[in-house]
């Protein structure tokens, strides 16, 4: 008894009332966030729960999910020990690493080149962003046509330039398919990196550059010692967002090659889609999703940290 009395006295003394009391006092505040949280719980919270739940079941190849049987972690073991998973994971890592690297390098280069006032700068920025804005399905068909084996303009240019004596089979060849898709992906998303880095460059104080210039620092030295340190935070966020969006890619590989030929462009999400909606295996594809989810969440940790650390004063 005396313990609770002491505790309640302590609560009276401390400036912060209990969580529950504060929640009650702020009850009206929750009304503002309720609609947003409501739809998010329905469309995000419930599906996460359901994916994890289904991942422990063997489901029939139909949508009669009530006939499922509990199999424990069998689905996980089957995926993680299969050669197909290894192959798809290797493809996914190649796709993600190269797409992210080239998109970032091109984007950073474009941002540095645009970080100066000149006539038509806004227009040029707008033009470079168009691929990022258009539908990935349209982009994928445009490039499928450019890569076309018989009438593709890229093959024709290569022949006209004397690089090869006959048109190249970009997409139907296991050697070139993944690389060809990475080019499309870089085309589509490099300007995202550009716009992020351009915004980051605006935070670099002009005076520092002038001072360094007076001290005789060259272009490259100034870039390395002044610009880059200021861009650390933006770089981290940009690379993380590119990594996540590339690990999550579906539309470009699906429309262009549907994972083929011979699985050479099959990546995580196309593999999951095929398992779930072509072979109607919701159980094992859920387990697959959970594995991808865990990878993503570990990156999400760094993302939130990167975003909030610099905003510490505001959100801390």
């Amino acid at each position, binding site marked *: 008894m005396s313990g609770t009395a002491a505790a309640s006295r302590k609560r009276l003394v401390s400036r912060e009332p209990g969580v529950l009391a*504060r*929640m009650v006092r*702020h009850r009206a*505040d*929750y009304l*503002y966030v309720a*609609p*947003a949280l409501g*739809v*998010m719980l329905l469309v*995000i919270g419930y*599906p*996460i729960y*359901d*994916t994890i739940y289904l991942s422990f079941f063997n489901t029939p190849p139909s949508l009669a999910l009530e006939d499922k049987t509990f199999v424990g972690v069998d689905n996980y073991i089957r995926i993680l020990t299969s050669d197909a998973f290894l192959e798809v994971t290797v493809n996914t890592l190649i796709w993600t690493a190269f797409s992210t690297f080239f998109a970032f390098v091109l984007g950073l280069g474009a941002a540095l*080149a*645009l970080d100066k006032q000149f006539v038509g700068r*806004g227009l040029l920025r*707008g*033009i470079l962003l*168009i691929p990022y*804005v*258009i*539908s*990935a*399905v*349209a982009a994928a*068909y445009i490039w499928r*046509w*450019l890569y*076309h084996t*018989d*009438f593709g303009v890229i093959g*024709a240019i290569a*022949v006209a330039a004397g690089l090869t004596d006959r048109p190249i089979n970009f997409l139907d060849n296991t050697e070139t398919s993944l690389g060809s898709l990475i080019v499309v992906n870089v*085309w589509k998303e490099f300007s995202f990196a550009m716009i*992020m880095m351009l915004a*980051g460059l605006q935070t670099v104080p002009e005076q520092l550059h002038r001072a360094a*210039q007076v001290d005789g620092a060259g*272009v490259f030295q100034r870039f390395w010692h002044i610009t880059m340190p*200021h861009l650390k*935070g*933006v770089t981290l*966020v940009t690379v993380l967002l590119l990594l*996540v969006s590339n690990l*999550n890619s*579906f*539309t470009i590989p699906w429309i262009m090659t549907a994972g083929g030929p011979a699985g050479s462009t099959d990546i*995580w999400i196309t593999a999951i*889609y095929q398992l*779930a909606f072509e072979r109607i295996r919701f159980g094992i594809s*859920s387990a697959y*999703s*959970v594995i*991808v989810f865990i990878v993503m969440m570990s*990156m999400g940790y760094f*993302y*939130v940290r990167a975003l909030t650390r610099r*905003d510490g004063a505001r*959100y801390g």
Partner: protein
Amino acid sequence: MKSRGSRGWGIVRVAFLAVLTLFTLLPMVWMLLTSLKTQFAASQYPPEWWPKNVTFEQYSLLLSPATETGRDFLRYMFNSVWVSLASTVLGVIVAVPAAYAFSRFRFPGRQLLFYSVLLRNMFPAVVFLMPLFILMRWLHLVNTEFSLILTYLTFGLPLSIWLLKGFYDNIPAQLEQAARMDGATRFQAFFQIVMPLSSPGIIATAIYSFILAWNEYLYALVFLNDKSKLTLPVGLQRFFTEYTTNWPGLMAASFITSVPVVVLFLILQKYFVRALTEGAVKA
């Protein structure tokens, strides 16, 4: 700003921008040129670099309500407009109060909630695909546009809330307090003071959500089967499976699909860029 070697760097800069612009534009130029050719002219080797006989037959086919192809395509377009507009408007209506609360109020669990909203950006879309499909089936929403509207509005929310919260944080609370001392209610203060000041944020949120919804493909592919319900990205794919060799038609359809978002983006570029970069670059 003249220094040793700056002219050399200037040339490198211009050359790099020129190459990048060509890399960006040429595929789209080829799409446009192909869409103006006859099917016969498009299937030539070596290609007809410039269309000899410019024809708008594919555009009139796609946009004419007289043919079945045209009727289908116009319907996809109408569906896309409707789904994108509805999810954008509803998204703003839901995001505004939530962002305002995250910015102004100090209720318990606020930070946890806010971080979980942010984390959504990291979720692989596919994690939600099967269970949402099951959920939509259970709610009898499969094959209705509402399934997409609900999904898109939710997927746009994290960024909208984050973006708008940034705007509200920058509007001094004293402005509202002053209005409330003059007898305004919280709602009046919000609608008359805060809303107008945060309208750039609302525009940025809206254009981002609209483009997101307009281009979305995976969920539209899974949720909709009925031909009369499809949105443009899935409609494009359908067009391709039906007329595999009609590349001019497919390029015309891709062009028409891209025009609305590109025009919207070019007009509101400033806001869209802000939507993308907000939060990532606070030094």
